[in-house]
């Protein structure tokens, strides 16, 4: 081996190699997305979901269906004062842990635990609200409703900090506000024994909860596209 060597690769050629590497990486990356969107089951924009996206989408819908279903069962139990109340509320609280755990793979344990904590407050405040309404304590009802809204605002802040691009605070706040409004309608109808309105309110809550689940799963997919290829 000699100690002499040819001139190194010119800077322009080096830059060209970097440029074409970037182009190739973009092509491969886009190709992944195109392939990922080649399975049946669709996005709202006409493209299709990957298996991983579908699993997240369905899992999130199950969690939020559980949320509104166990909330309804808890409302029924709390209003009627039936002996299953404790077990039903415990199951409802477990759902808050499940929802918090669902975001841990993306945002970590601390964020997941924080969401669980806020969602548990959401449930416990609702229970206090129902108790105040049953007792006819209007001042307490107003106070608990304000607390409930502040808790929803805290949840919106937490989520928007985690994913500011896809979960804008204002949009999440409005979404959660609608959830509180519809749940209030359900509770009021049940307290008044207006069963038709009670059932109609639950139908609206159910559809709205599925929309919330989709907002969350879509936001996760858009923020972490690589994890869903």
């Amino acid at each position, binding site marked *: *081996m*000699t*100690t*002499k*060597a*040819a*001139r*190194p*690769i*010119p*800077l322009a050629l*080096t*830059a060209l*190699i*970097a*440029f*074409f*590497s*970037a*182009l*190739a*990486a*973009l092509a*491969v*990356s886009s190709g*992944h997305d195109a392939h990922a969107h080649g399975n049946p089951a669709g996005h709202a924009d006409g493209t299709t979901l990957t298996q991983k996206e579908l699993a997240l989408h369905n899992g999130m819908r199950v969690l939020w269906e559980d949320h509104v279903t166990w909330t309804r069962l808890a409302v029924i139990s709390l209003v009627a004062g039936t002996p299953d109340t404790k077990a039903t509320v415990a199951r409802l609280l477990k759902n808050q842990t499940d929802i918090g755990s669902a975001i841990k*793979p*993306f*945002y*970590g344990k601390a964020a997941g635990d924080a969401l669980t904590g806020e969602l548990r407050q959401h449930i416990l405040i609702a229970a206090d609200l129902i108790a105040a309404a049953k007792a006819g304590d209007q001042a307490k009802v107003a106070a608990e409703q304000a607390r409930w809204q502040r808790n929803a605002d805290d949840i919106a802040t937490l989520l928007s900090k985690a994913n500011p*691009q896809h979960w804008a605070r204002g949009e999440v706040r409005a979404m959660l506000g609608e959830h509180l409004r519809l749940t209030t309608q359900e509770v009021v109808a049940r307290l008044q024994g207006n069963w038709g309105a009670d059932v109609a309110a639950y139908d609206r809550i159910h559809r709205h909860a599925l929309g919330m689940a989709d907002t969350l799963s879509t936001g996760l997919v*858009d*923020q*972490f*596209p*690589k*994890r869903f*290829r």
Partner: protein
Amino acid sequence: MITRAAIERDLVIVTCAISAGIHAALIPEHLTEGAATGAGFAIATALLAAVAVALTRVVSAAALASAAVLFGGLIVGYGLAVTTGLPLFHPHAEAVDGLALFTKAVELLGLLGATHLLWRLRPALALNYPRPKGTPA
């Protein structure tokens, strides 16, 4: 005559350029995951580009050592990113990805080239470039 040292030097430059290009292309995608993750890719791009530019000018021990440390760091960083997660830049483990594996293979080649040049050919490197007329040998 093209020596083995020259081939290894060019290999390090090319691997720096390829890795820099790939990291640059992936900055926007990683910015959506988080500012720190995107910043990590931008920093890696800038450092790789700087080392590539340096090596096209003078093959110094410092530039080769920088390339070796940079490639080693990127390979270890990716290993952490797909296992335990990389604190600050990528806190949670991600799935193994074909493009990333290709990039790490390229970086491994660069790492091998840089370390080989550093440890076996360093005395010769100073002689590799044409000297200006009148400069004593």
